[in-house]
């Protein structure tokens, strides 16, 4: 039976039973928020929430993809299945994208225990954050014990994605000036592990010390997790020259242990759910409202009256919400 002929429930079952092709298709449907997407997500949701989710951000050229390649190897060696979501920027003009991260994971291209999915950053009906959040849930339902989300970390959307992750890594390199940029973007606050890749380059030691200092002074009060600053050399032509990856994996596992021991994992999970709830809510409310307005010509009417100076957006929204949500009845 072709995939196209399956009901949402059957598709979801296929995903849960390990059908890779079905899972890939479900991811597409979910990215596109196709009609039955929510049905499928409902079926899959109870089977999610148990994976280790790692988020990795860093600018292009930081070597984060190669780092991920090594992380995949380490997790596979531990016997864990791994899913990777690699987000690459889409063109703001055409909406198209060159998804070139996958090329970095060649060594795993035939390993069935590794599932890699590339995503552009634009064009999702509900925005990138919603799409990625849903895709990660599907990957969990597929049975991937570790999920790695890779983004550039530029732009609000991509920072929002990181809230889905439990352990966040920020990848910098010496002399790229990213350390300063990252501080500005607010990513430093989110990062649990700050990785200085290409740590064999000139200026690495200085950079490391600077980062350690930044972490130290940025500390709030309380016995929280102190972000670890970790040097790595991910890009090497011989595996014996790769440095720091084992320590990095240890650092990740330590953070995970910390989350579980302090029960902070519950907070992290709650945050994720709150994030997703917010995203789904926003989408669905929008859908309901615009679906309702569609065909009535009301939307156009509102726009006209605002333009003519007879109304304003704020009053319009109040009015519409009152109609749709019967807000006054809830008070």
């Amino acid at each position, binding site marked *: 039976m072709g995939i196209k002929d399956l009901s949402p429930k059957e598709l979801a079952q296929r995903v849960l039973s390990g059908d890779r092709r079905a899972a890939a298709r479900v991811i597409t449907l979910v990215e596109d928020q196709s009609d039955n997407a929510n049905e499928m997500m409902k079926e899959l949701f109870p089977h999610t929430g148990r994976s280790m989710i790692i988020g990795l951000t860093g600018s292009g050229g930081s070597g984060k993809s190669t780092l991920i390649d090594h992380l995949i190897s380490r997790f596979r060696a531990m016997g864990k299945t791994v899913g990777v979501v690699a987000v690459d920027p889409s063109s703001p003009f*055409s909406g*198209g994208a060159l998804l070139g991260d996958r*090329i970095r994971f060649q060594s795993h291209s*035939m390993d069935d225990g590794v599932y890699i999915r590339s995503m*552009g950053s634009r064009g999702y009906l509900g925005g990138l954050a919603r799409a990625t959040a849903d895709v990660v849930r599907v990957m969990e339902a597929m049975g991937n014990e570790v999920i790695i989300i890779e983004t550039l970390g530029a732009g609000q959307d991509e920072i929002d994605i990181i809230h889905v992750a439990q352990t966040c890594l920020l990848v910098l390199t010496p002399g790229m000036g990213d350390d300063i940029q990252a501080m500005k973007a607010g990513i430093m606050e989110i990062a649990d592990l700050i990785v200085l890749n290409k740590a064999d380059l000139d200026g690495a030691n200085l950079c490391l010390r600077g980062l350690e200092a930044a972490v130290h002074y940025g500390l709030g009060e309380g016995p929280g997790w102190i972000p670890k600053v970790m040097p790595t050399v991910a890009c090497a032509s011989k595996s014996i020259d790769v440095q720091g990856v084992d320590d990095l994996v240890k650092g990740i596992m330590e953070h995970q242990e910390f989350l579980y021991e302090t029960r902070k994992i519950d907070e992290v999970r709650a945050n994720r759910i709150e994030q997703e709830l917010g995203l789904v809510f926003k989408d669905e409310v929008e859908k309901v409202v615009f679906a309702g307005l569609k065909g009535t010509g009301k939307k156009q009417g509102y726009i006209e009256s605002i333009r003519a100076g007879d109304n304003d957006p704020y009053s319009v929204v109040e009015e519409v919400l009152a109609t749709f949500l019967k807000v006054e009845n809830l008070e």
Partner: protein
Amino acid sequence: MSAGKIKVILSKVGLDGHDRGAKVVASVLRSAGMEVVYLGMFQTPESIVKAAIDEDADVIGVSYLSGEHLVFTPLIVQEMKAQGLEDVLFVAGGSFPPEDIPTMKAMGIDEVFRGGSLSEDFVNYIRSRAGEKEA
């Protein structure tokens, strides 16, 4: 499709490293609004098809420049069939004798675009057929 976009796997297969054409096509397809998963060089039919499955691709595009078109085309078609990817479009570009084109089509490739093809041609072809196969 994902995010309503056509997803294309673009690859070179075998030992040939000349990737100028493949890269130009990748840029063209991106400018045309498609998502291109570029696999690079030294891929095998198996690795290409596996990527197509995982990425839920609509199109597999291969660049042939060194005479390997009659060797790899049937292998890729075979692998696609074995993995149930009949609804995925398979196209190739590059340099091969026009006499071989009917053979390649008989082997199961959907369309070929020899060097000198206009971007418009393959973009329009993919746009019109990728959706069709899905339907």
